């Protein structure tokens, strides 16, 4: 039995504590925005927030988490897609296939929580998600645009 708090809602599950958080989110809660791709914590497609920190949910056993920890998935990042990163991503048409983008946005959002005005070097060292379509230059522009939006700028 695991108890979690996901996107502000309490949730109880009858699962083996070894089950990765990713598969609890997808199989038990139906939160399909968090993606499976590598399963070994390398690609970042499964990135969610635990207490504001980006974690790769495919390698985090659900038994290691408590209900006191706030888990946020892409579905809970903003109520209506209005997070500055989501606005910036829409403005710049960042996604191509889109499969890695929830993880990319969650990783970038956690970075902005810690560092509201990241430099290119900060982005390079923090954002290690894989995108096979190759959206990186628009991802970078999107983060800088979101930074400006956070400060009250317009797209």
């Amino acid at each position: 039995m695991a108890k979690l708090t996901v996107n502000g809602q309490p949730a109880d599950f009858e699962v083996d504590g070894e089950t990765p958080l990713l598969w609890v989110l997808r199989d038990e809660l139906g939160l399909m925005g968090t993606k499976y791709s590598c399963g070994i914590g390398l690609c970042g497609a499964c990135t969610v927030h635990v207490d504001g920190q980006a974690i790769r949910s495919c390698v985090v056993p659900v038994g290691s988490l408590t209900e006191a920890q706030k888990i946020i998935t892409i579905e809970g990042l903003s109520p209506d897609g209005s997070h500055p990163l989501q606005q910036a991503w829409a403005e710049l048409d960042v996604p191509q296939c889109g499969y890695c983008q929830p993880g990319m946005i969650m990783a970038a959002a956690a970075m902005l929580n810690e560092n509201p005005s990241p430099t290119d070097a900060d982005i390079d060292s923090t954002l290690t998600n894989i995108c096979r379509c190759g959206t990186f230059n628009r991802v970078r522009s999107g983060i800088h645009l979101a930074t400006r939006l956070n400060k009250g700028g317009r797209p």
Partner: protein
Amino acid sequence: MAIERVKITRRDFLIASATAGAGLSLGLYLPLGNRQAQAADTIQEVNAWVVIEPDDTVIIRIARSEMGQGTLTGLAQLVAEELECDWSKVKTEYPTPGQNLARNRVWGSFSTGGSQGIRGSHQYVREGGALAREMLREAAAEAWDVPAEECTVSASVITHRPTGRATTYGKVAAAAARLVPPLEVELKDPKDWKLIGRPVKRLDTRDKLTGKQVFGADLQLPGMLNATIKACPVFGGALVTFDADAVREIPGVRAVVRVGDDAVAVVAETWWQAKKALDALPVTWDEGPNVGVSSESIAQMLDEGIAADEAFIGNQAGDVEAALAGAAKTVEAVYSYPYQNHATMEPMNATARWTADRCEVWCPTQNGEAALAATAEAAGLPASQCEVYKIHLGGGFGRRGAFHDFVRQAVTIAKQLPGTPVKLLWTREEDMLHGAYHPITRAKLVGGLDENGDLVGLRIRISGQSILSAVMPGRLSNGADLLTFQGLLPEGDHAISYTVPNLLIDHAMRNPPIRPGFWRGVNINQNAIYMECFLDELAHAAGSDPLAFRRKLMAEHPRSLAVLNAVAEKAGWGQESGGMHRGLAVCMAFGSYVAACAEVTVDAGGKLKIHRIVAATDPGYAVNPQQIEAQVAGSFVFGLSAMLWGECTIQGGRVQQENFDTYPSMRIAEMPHVATIVMPSGGFWGGVGEPTIAVAAPAVLNAVFAATGTRIRDLPLKNIDLRAA
């Protein structure tokens, strides 16, 4: 029986269109008795491409698949341009392969590969939009009892010029749908385009930002079970036995099933349960005849092909042997290119529901009709009793077009649980071990220079694997795979960019037992490296500037020369480089002309930094320049990931790389700035998704030579020490 066009519900449309028979390209004719089928949820299909709802929402049907390349938006732009509709009210939908079959393939090909999405269908989709426009105009004119010529259309509004009366597409769509379409329609002159050529935003972005976009891996159906699979990791091997009893008690496990000759799957309530059980399942394989195949044995095969007497000729001019014998100087080099995996971010998957008289599949596919054929075959049912529902792809890159092994497997599993939908999702490891790999080749190149340093003879022997012989043997030409010569052919969509007076390019086909497939860019990936890096070698041997050396060979290739000149000018070739080392490449592929100039540095520790790539592309017509820019930068990530790290090595008849730890892909820190010049010269339709991939790697490799003096002839670069010798 009286026949009349009627409005029908969406559900009725699906049913009716599956039975409506052939040739009804402009909608459905139903008996009057079906009028009761009308409901509030109506569709008004003006023709196969265009549905207009009463609120003026325009639904444009898209036959090709969206996998990130933006074709959905580009194709909608083509239809909307002629339709003269309000772009802000455009939505899109996929017709199903079953509907296409039932309606005599009214939507044409569903195949989404070879950069064909736009260039393979621009004519008929624009005609579809234009015919619908004329029918809407006619419907309004009839209602007003005026000549249609007096009515103008713009942004979904029809106006009768003499009186100023106006109506909208939504109000007349039902009447338009009843009209007989004009026999002919004239398409706009490109100079009058308002939407084609505009950098409009994609139509499919919003849901990709919130997690709402459903990919195949995300599909959920009532009562659905989850499966994962393991096929024999050795190519050509078979499944002998498995011990289902050992895992039956694992919570959630519902079935352990044989899948064809070579695979076993576990079906469980959740995917994680299925994976845990499959990991624990004792399996015995017959590793088959290829267990002795290795990268070394394949290299021997290819080396033998390099020296072989017989080969298929792809391009020939003059007398190359005489020219080389008489040359003042000859240069010789051997290059090689390894196996690559597509490694789409979304692993292979399909969901199937099978009953004795019907089989349905939901899957990401680059070719819905091929997926339907695979479904019917695996289901043991006629195609008319099967259907495939396409879902956006989490990457395709060629993996999900020619091969539907994942569909066959899903259906084979579902067949053993009749009536229950089963979603099969591969692990990353399964995806890496059972790819359709970029083929392996190597090439020996010999060039001859005269006393002036001019290229008088060039001989290229390619040795290695043919995709067509494994995938589409019917497309071989007297045994030859002309696709092997992409970028080197005398003419066509993949023509050589140079005129060499004495030339021989041939292919010694050597096919190792590793399944090859179409991988973004296909054979231009290695051919452009072979050609462009070797031309750089020749330029150096001639004491020439690589740009000047190329230009001398390009007088008869003005479009290729134009893109090359464009990147050279923008990058400042020959001018102060601020410590950057530069390299050039040019190629024609998939009907487009492309070039690149890379700027790199290599530090004392041998670390390569790719700072910037200036790229130019002439696709003839540029439908959406901002999406072309995205495809250019994206293709560089795919091509450069392969150049830097990508290789699938073989040992014991199996691939050794099982995940991104041993098969890395580029990350943002490695991404160069990309400056894209979109320079459409008009008059032809070239591809966009693939061509530029060809020039990224050779431009960078030539820049690496400029920086280090080291020629890279074997990839990937991770195996090469770039520290100063």
